[in-house]
């Protein structure tokens, strides 16, 4: 495919010529294809003399004067008086200017074309014999179009040696480019002003919470916020450097949110450059963490898995053979991860640049997910198609779109973790290990970290949720500015014998646990068949249960999807004794739940395990956000300028078209 087709010297082989008898290569040993007897053709109709057989030419050429035998484009332009030259688009005008410019010094070329004042010269095309394309056979219609193109551009016919070739020298500047240059300059200027001065602060910043009508992004945030250190999250980087400006922010925020809670992201992509780019995002996260020794390490805190070749086929392999994919890192080394299937990861997060990526993931991966939701984010270009999938498929949660949603996500994330940091700071006034400064000095659970890559992935903690209150051993400190001074009961030896009311999920499909007892409330968590939760309360008619979740939150689950049971604590934990023992060793802090709906929910506090095996606020809070606001302002101002440019340009051109039509009407 390396050779270019020589349009000028191309000569179609005579169709009537007999085929060569000797066949090249090994084909001579193959049997010849038998010749089928010819079928009777269509009867030849007599030609009608009254209808002239016109060649298939564009309208411009049919209107040319018949005196010209083989007119060139320059001829057509010069003789076609009905259409002024300024109506032609820039490309044709530029071609014409180049033809005029190049024909001035080329007297020989002018002489070669009889009675032509202006010349559109053909660029020099060198012939390279052989090659794949030059051997390609053209259809009859294509041959006619080649000849037509030669006629229009005034190219010499094959074998016409009288016309010398002209080397074009394009002009450095064309007058027709002035409007484009002005428009570009204005757009660039307006988009740059917010970076120079804060006086150009047009428009509002994105909200600090997702709008209450947008349940998708809110649910996505909630699900990632419920991660625990035992969770693995598959993060698909399906965007290249072209979309880095738009999607880097949300990719970085997702990673920060995941690693801040000590969950482990497994990065994967069907785009090889995206894998390398993911390393840069990780480096950016690491650079922002000030204290030493806490940076993320490949193979311990995150994994980058091998490249998935083949587009949709690669994704198919991911969903069918995730155990194999997770076994090898992008460096070709063994990761030590052992998974049975894609359902062993807690969530799949996908960041798509193109609608095609979203389609591939929705069609190849999402149907294979039984328990794991797919959380989706995309750029603006892919959003219309991606939103259709997010709205249609229960497995897909989202959609977070573009840079503005990334800003809102960052606001929510930072408010949440800043509150945690403040709580920890104030709580730690009496205990050294609780202060944020001391967080860094706490010895990391090295044994657990060392085991992590080798550990078999376990189902998410929500599968066997420990009760939210009972096993917590310490007095819960009072959070600032709150009226919730809850003191948790001290565990007793008989605590495990206590009978409690629980619900067991009986629905075979994934069940949504919501913030309130209606389907309109936000989704907090997902549950599978067999999961059990302790009952806190019921709503008025008993159709919804208020249940305790593993992370200290409480949620609501529909009664028709569960079955109520009475179990002892030991039965309820069912092998979770280890978990309760582990919990008893950890400090318990109060953490404020982020109020997700403006003016709807009051802030409240729940218990969380922090900071030793819990959240690391520094990963979220130590971001450089200095360029975010000017950039959002620039987006607003740039869009506004674009609107004005498009509106103004089209009004001018529409008026011009109307005046032209009026003038043509008067002439007729």
């Amino acid at each position, binding site marked *: 495919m390396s050779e270019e087709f020589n349009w000028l010297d191309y000569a179609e082989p005579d169709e009537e010529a007999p085929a060569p008898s000797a066949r090249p290569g090994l084909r001579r040993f193959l049997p010849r294809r038998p010749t089928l007897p010819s079928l009777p053709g269509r009867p030849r109709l007599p030609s009608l003399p009254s209808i002239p057989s016109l060649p298939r030419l564009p309208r411009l050429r049919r209107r040319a004067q018949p005196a010209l035998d083989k007119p060139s484009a320059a001829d057509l332009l010069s003789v076609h008086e009905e259409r002024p030259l300024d109506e032609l688009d820039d490309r044709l005008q530029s071609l014409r200017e180049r033809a005029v410019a190049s024909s001035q010094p080329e007297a020989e070329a002018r002489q070669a074309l009889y009675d032509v004042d202006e010349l559109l010269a053909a660029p020099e095309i060198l012939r390279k014999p052989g090659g794949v394309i030059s051997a390609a056979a053209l259809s009859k219609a294509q041959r006619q179009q080649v000849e037509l193109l030669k006629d229009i551009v005034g190219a010499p016919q094959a074998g016409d040696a009288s016309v010398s070739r002209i080397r074009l020298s394009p002009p450095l500047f064309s007058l027709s480019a002035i409007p484009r240059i002005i428009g570009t300059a204005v757009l660039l200027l307006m988009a740059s002003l917010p970076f120079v001065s804060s006086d150009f602060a047009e428009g509002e910043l994105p909200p600090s919470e997702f709008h209450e009508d947008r349940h998708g992004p809110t649910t996505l945030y909630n699900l990632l916020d419920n991660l625990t250190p035992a969770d693995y999250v598959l993060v698909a980087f399906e965007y290249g450097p072209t979309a880095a400006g738009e999607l880097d922010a949300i990719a970085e925020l997702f990673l920060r949110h995941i690693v801040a809670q000590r969950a482990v992201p497994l990065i994967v992509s069907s785009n090889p450059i995206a894998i390398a780019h993911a390393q840069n995002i990780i480096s950016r996260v690491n650079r922002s963490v000030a204290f030493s020794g806490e940076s993320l390490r490949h193979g311990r805190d995150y994994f980058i898995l091998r490249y998935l070749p083949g587009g949709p086929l690669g994704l198919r392999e991911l969903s069918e053979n995730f155990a194999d994919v997770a076994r090898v890192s992008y460096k070709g080394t063994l990761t030590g991860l052992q998974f049975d299937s894609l359902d062993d990861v807690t969530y799949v997060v996908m960041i798509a640049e193109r609608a095609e990526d979203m389609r591939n993931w929705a069609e190849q991966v999402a149907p294979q997910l039984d328990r794991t939701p797919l959380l989706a984010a995309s750029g603006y270009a892919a959003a219309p198609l991606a939103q259709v999938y997010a709205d249609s498929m229960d497995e897909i949660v989202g959609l977070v779109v573009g840079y503005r949603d990334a800003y809102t996500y960052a606001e929510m994330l930072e408010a949440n973790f800043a509150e945690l940091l403040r709580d920890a700071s104030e709580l730690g006034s009496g205990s050294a290990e609780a202060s944020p400064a001391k967080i860094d000095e706490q010895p990391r659970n090295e044994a657990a970290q060392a085991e992590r890559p080798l550990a078999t992935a376990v189902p998410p903690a929500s599968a066997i949720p420990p009760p939210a209150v009972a096993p917590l051993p310490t007095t819960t400190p009072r959070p600032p500015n709150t009226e919730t001074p809850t003191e948790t009961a001290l565990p007793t030896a008989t605590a495990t014998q206590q009978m409690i009311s629980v619900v067991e999920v009986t629905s075979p499909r994934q069940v949504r646990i919501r913030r309130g007892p209606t389907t309109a409330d936000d989704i907090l968590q997902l549950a599978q068949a067999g999961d059990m939760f302790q009952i806190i309360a019921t709503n008025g008619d008993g159709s919804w249960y208020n249940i305790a979740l593993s992370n200290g939150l409480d949620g609501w689950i529909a009664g028709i999807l569960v079955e109520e049971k009475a179990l002892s604590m030991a039965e309820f934990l069912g092998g979770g004794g280890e978990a309760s023992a582990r919990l008893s060793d950890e400090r318990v802090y109060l953490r404020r739940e982020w109020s997700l709906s403006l003016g709807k929910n009051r802030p409240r506090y729940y218990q969380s395990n922090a900071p030793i095996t819990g959240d690391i606020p520094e990963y979220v809070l130590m971001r450089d956000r200095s360029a975010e606001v000017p950039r959002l302002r620039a987006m607003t101002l740039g869009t506004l300028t674009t609107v004005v440019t498009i509106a103004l*340009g089209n009004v001018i051109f529409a008026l011009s078209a109307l005046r032209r039509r009026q003038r043509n009407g008067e002439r007729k």
Partner: protein
Amino acid sequence: MGRAGLAGIVAFAVGLTTVLSLLLGNNPALFGDQPGSEELARRLALPGDVLLRLLVIVIALSIVIGIVNLLYIHIGRLTRGKFYSAVLLASFAFTIFWLTVNRGDTSLLEAVQVPIESALAALLFLSLALGGARVMQKRADIWGLLFVAVVLSVLLGSLPLAELAPVRAFSAWLLAVPVSAGARAILLGIALGTIVVGVRAVLGLDRSYRG
């Protein structure tokens, strides 16, 4: 039987095996509650699984072949004095050298490729904006007017200005109803087209492997 016929038969057999394996494999419910149905479903899934993995390996190998072919072509162009081919080959050699010396370093990607591709995306925006301003020059009719009106509505709807709340509502409706309907129609078309192309490929009607 010629080479084309043989290739067609192989393609047909492989395609049919894969389709049947994907449809019947890993789905024991198809065979009822009889003993051994799970094993049967697992065995049925095996051919499709193996063939798909082979295909993925072939695709991965084709990337290597593509790189070798690219180098071969540009070395050939270099002998004819093509400057851009020299730049490409020098960049290729430098990148390989850099990554060999600084193993795992992605600063070249961050410092060169990301800015260049981002700049190209910005250029595309400028071209689209200027092209949008000239719609009525090319097509001064009702369809051009409709196009411009929709573009302006969507752009105005995306602006975070309180004064444009009605336009924002209209823009949201536009995206939620007509655009969503169009997107679903496109998805249906893609699905139907994929089926047609798949059937043509399996039946050997496509030219690629007919010799």
